[in-house]
């Protein structure tokens, strides 16, 4: 601990916590003050996380010991490349959702802004923590805030979906606790790095129990990541949530992915002895099934918010399957995919809310019936208008172009980053494969490409229904503060496409560090001072 820069690591947790507390003290009525605090906090978070990202190169792993307690007694925060990347993503998405909410959503219910800050605090904490129990605590902070966010605005649909969301996540938390306590009972520690160092030494007769404990914990992560068959709650909840809440909720499913990446690669890397690679087949199979289920859900849905929810499933599945292959280069591609899909899905959730305003209530049902029954009798009258063509208002054109960009990003078509990400996942799979390419590789390739096709079909169909063939064009009233965040997220996706070279190099370095966690272990355990007495 020397110099103020060491405290940077904890700042992304402290800033939103203080901001949230200050907002509660200021009271929900003083809207201008709360918004000012919120803007300040979000700008700080973005700046801090970018600073951490820049600094994540040297030294590779920064640790922060709370209260300067020796590592294994106190709480450790660890910031490495992966954490920094997730922090930046959270910050950008948070900023976009926050600005978007200022137009009207923050007035839809009480305490939107404090909840939003606590949500960010939980997310940042989960990305930074170095031990399993604090991961649980930050999961809970994040979830408690997300319950409020999912229910924000109230209404029958939200309460109904929120009830399922709450119940499922409470059960997941209980599973997490069971897993944590089994791991503690066998491993004798909850510090991830220490646990990783101890796993090869676990006695043979205890190994099964330890793996079972970690598997139970993994189920809790996979419920967050919405792996099939644990993810049926996701499309309904995300579709029902208010747009800015849904955008920030969409990164919650990536927390599950992050936890898998962090814990699984750390504990079951090649150094883990007999446990190395435990559960890889399950991740791969589960990921493929999730892609399949997500693609069917994408095709089956007529309703735009559910479409976005289903594409979260597809992206989770793709990530899980890619991680399950356990190859460094594929993980790098998966990280690139994760970055792109967080931005694209966030933009899509915000965009949908704006696009839906141009439609009348029940337009979905009308679209379905028209598709099923064919064009009705109103064809004759429409001819005159069709000859001159219907002018598309400017704002709808912008929204339509944004929607198109989201479709390209999510379906993985060139020229945007979605294509590069899928290519980065598939190319090493085929490049390093032995001559008769394994069945799973073929399956993975088919799943990725077919899910892209399904997404494309669904998005094109939805886009035509919303932007080209509305029954009556109603120009939506869209304010600049609502359009700007969508454009920001899309611009970031564009930047990711243009800067794909440096971005992929960063992801490659991250993936290498994840697959060979020696640096992580040394940074955390090397800081261990001489321990009084023996550890249990």
């Amino acid at each position, binding site marked *: 601990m020397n110099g103020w820069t060491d405290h940077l690591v904890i700042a992304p947790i402290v800033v939103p916590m203080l901001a949230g507390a200050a907002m509660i003290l200021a009271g929900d009525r003083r809207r201008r003050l709360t918004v000012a605090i919120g803007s300040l906090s979000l700008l700080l978070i973005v700046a801090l996380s970018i600073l951490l990202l820049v600094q994540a190169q040297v030294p590779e792993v920064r640790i922060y010991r709370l209260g300067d307690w020796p590592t294994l007694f106190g709480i450790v925060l660890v910031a490495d490349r992966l954490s920094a990347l997730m922090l930046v993503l959270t910050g950008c998405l948070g900023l976009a959702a926050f600005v978007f909410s200022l137009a009207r959503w923050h007035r839809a219910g009480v305490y939107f802004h404090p909840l939003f800050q606590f949500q960010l605090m939980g997310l940042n904490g989960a990305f930074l923590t170095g031990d399993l*129990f604090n991961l649980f605590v930050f999961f809970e902070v994040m979830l408690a805030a997300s*319950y409020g966010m999912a229910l924000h605005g109230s*209404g029958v649909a939200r309460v109904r979906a929120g*009830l*399922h969301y*709450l119940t499922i996540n*409470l059960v997941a938390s209980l599973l997490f*606790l*069971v897993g*944590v306590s089994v791991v503690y009972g066998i491993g004798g520690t909850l510090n991830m790095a220490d646990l990783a160092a101890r796993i090869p030494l676990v006695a043979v007769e205890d190994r099964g129990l330890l793996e079972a404990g970690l598997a139970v914990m993994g189920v809790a992560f996979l419920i967050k990541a919405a792996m099939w068959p644990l993810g049926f709650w996701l499309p309904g909840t995300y579709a029902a949530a208010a747009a800015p809440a849904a955008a920030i909720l969409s990164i919650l499913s990536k927390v599950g992915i992050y936890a898998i990446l962090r814990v699984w690669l750390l504990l079951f890397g090649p150094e883990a002895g007999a446990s190395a690679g435990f559960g890889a087949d399950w991740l791969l199979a589960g990921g493929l099934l999730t892609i399949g289920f997500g693609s069917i859900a994408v095709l089956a849905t007529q309703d735009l918010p559910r479409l976005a929810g289903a594409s979260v499933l597809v992206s989770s599945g793709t990530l899980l399957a890619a991680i399950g292959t356990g190859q460094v280069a594929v993980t790098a591609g998966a990280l690139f995919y994760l970055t792109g899909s967080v931005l694209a899905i966030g933009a899509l959730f915000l965009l949908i809310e704006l696009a839906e305003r141009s439609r009348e209530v029940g337009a979905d049902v009308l679209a379905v019936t028209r598709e099923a029954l064919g064009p009705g009798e109103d064809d004759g009258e429409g001819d005159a208008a069709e000859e001159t063509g219907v002018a598309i208002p400017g704002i709808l054109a912008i929204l339509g172009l944004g929607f198109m960009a989201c479709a390209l990003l999510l379906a993985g078509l060139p020229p945007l980053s979605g294509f590069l990400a899928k290519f980065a996942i598939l190319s090493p799979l085929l490049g390093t494969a032995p001559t008769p390419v394994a069945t799973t590789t073929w399956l993975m390739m088919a799943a990725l490409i077919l899910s892209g096709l399904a997404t494309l079909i669904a998005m094109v169909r939805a886009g035509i229904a919303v932007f080209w063939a509305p029954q009556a064009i109603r120009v939506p009233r869209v304010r600049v503060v609502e359009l700007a965040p969508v454009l920001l997220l899309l611009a970031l996706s564009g930047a990711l496409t243009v800067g794909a070279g440096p971005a992929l190099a960063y992801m490659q370095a991250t993936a290498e560090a994840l697959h060979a966690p020696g640096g992580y272990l040394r940074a955390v355990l090397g800081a261990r001072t001489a321990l009084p007495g023996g550890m249990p």
Partner: protein
Amino acid sequence: MELILSLGIGVLAGSGVWLLLRPRTFQVIIGLCLLSYAVNLFIFSTGGLRTGAAAILQRGEVGTLADYADPLPQALALTAIVISFATTALLLVVLLASRGLTGTDHVDGRERNR
């Protein structure tokens, strides 16, 4: 001692799971409570079980580290109790809201068609 504790955890968890799968929101919430009791006991038990041990020190004995119960599971159980208590309270509010908005206490917000 081990048998009683494991039977207790098992019965609590079993009833909790059964109630969790019931269609009424109140049954679900009670099921979650029972499950969280089971999990708390389970966490507590990972610290190791002893019978007839002194609370802190035996009379006339010099304490060693081995005499103390492992404090970490206790801290975990305490945190877990607080968190599950708070989230259950929140669930109760959502349950009431759901009852008020949908007019039924079915978990799906509507009665199953018979």
